[in-house]
């Protein structure tokens, strides 16, 4: 099937790519060479923190991301592929950065005094390339896991409604993270560190993390599916801006939902609960 991409779509794709590259370059320099600016926590004593090791570890998700991007490029064209990639970085990257920094600087009290005693959220430890205060490959991971899960849901349920496919995609990603998160926070890896005192945990990981996995992919799949209609209604440039604005609104709404959940859980779930197996 021939994919038609207009010159304007190509230009927008190039601008998004350049924007992503610029943020990654700026963030990586800031993180590695000026860590005091954002009070980057020390990673002394952690494994695989030399620059070559971090670079090699980054290459693994980059390869997986490349496979998904190639699929998107061949089946939907460069513009839509870049919109999925850029949208994922914007949607999840900004939200996770806000989450990490709000935890680091204890900025939850404005929302509810139930959150006054929150000890923080989490922080990432190792990466060669950064996107703000989160590894670039984590954003890329969101991209290709969301892309793959929605693709798998589409293959398995080709005639199902969008809501059902988006829900299945979110559920599959959450199921994957239920195994990945405990492994990646184990003492050997410590790819990220939870400093949250959230009161409901699963495998010692805050429940909100798994809720986030489901919600992010569910909501993003719905927003992305509406992109063609936005383009039809507003044209390419305005449609693109409306798409990113919609993502921003969804993101703010989702973060408010998660904070409301956190405030209620801090108040009513006492003592804290941790659903574990074999002490994990």
């Amino acid at each position, binding site marked *: 099937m021939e994919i038609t991409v207009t010159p304007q779509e190509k230009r927008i794709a190039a601008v998004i790519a350049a924007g992503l590259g610029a943020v990654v370059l700026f963030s990586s320099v800031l993180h590695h060479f000026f860590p005091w600016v954002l009070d980057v926590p020390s990673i002394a004593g952690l494994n695989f923190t030399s620059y070559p090791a971090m670079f090699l570890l980054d290459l693994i998700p980059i390869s997986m991301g490349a496979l998904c991007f190639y699929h998107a490029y061949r089946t939907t064209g460069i513009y839509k592929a870049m919109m999925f990639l850029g949208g994922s970085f914007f949607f999840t990257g900004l939200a996770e950065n806000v989450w990490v920094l709000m935890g680091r600087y204890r900025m939850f009290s404005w929302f509810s005094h139930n959150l006054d005693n929150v000890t923080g959220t989490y922080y990432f430890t190792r990466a060669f390339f950064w996107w703000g205060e989160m590894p670039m490959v984590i954003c890329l991971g969101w991209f*290709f896991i969301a892309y793959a899960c929605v693709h*798998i849901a589409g293959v398995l349920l080709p005639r199902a409604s969008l809501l059902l496919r988006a829900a299945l995609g979110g559920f599959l990603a959450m199921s994957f993270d239920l195994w990945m998160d405990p492994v990646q926070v184990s003492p050997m890896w410590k790819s990220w560190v939870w400093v949250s005192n959230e009161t409901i945990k699963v495998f010692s990981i805050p429940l909100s993390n798994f809720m986030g996995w489901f919600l992010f992919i569910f909501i993003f799949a719905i927003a992305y599916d509406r992109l063609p209609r936005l383009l039809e209604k507003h044209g390419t440039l305005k449609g693109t801006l409306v798409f990113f604005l919609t993502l921003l609104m969804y993101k703010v709404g989702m973060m408010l939902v998660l904070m409301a959940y956190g405030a209620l859980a801090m108040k009513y779930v006492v003592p804290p609960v941790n659903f574990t197996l074999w002490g994990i």
Partner: protein
Amino acid sequence: MTNHSQKMIETLPILAFLGYLLYSCLICALLSGDARLLKIWFVAAPALIAAALALRSVLSRREVQ
């Protein structure tokens, strides 16, 4: 694009997902030396089964001349 290469392209996201699951869950759990992290593999069973079924579905699609 031939049907065969189209089919191969359709498998790429599934392979990427399975590959990353293999690395970030299984291999990292093995390297961690903590057997408990291997024992909880079943929590990812829905994702594994769905990916395997999707892969089979794509590969078994009939080629149209």
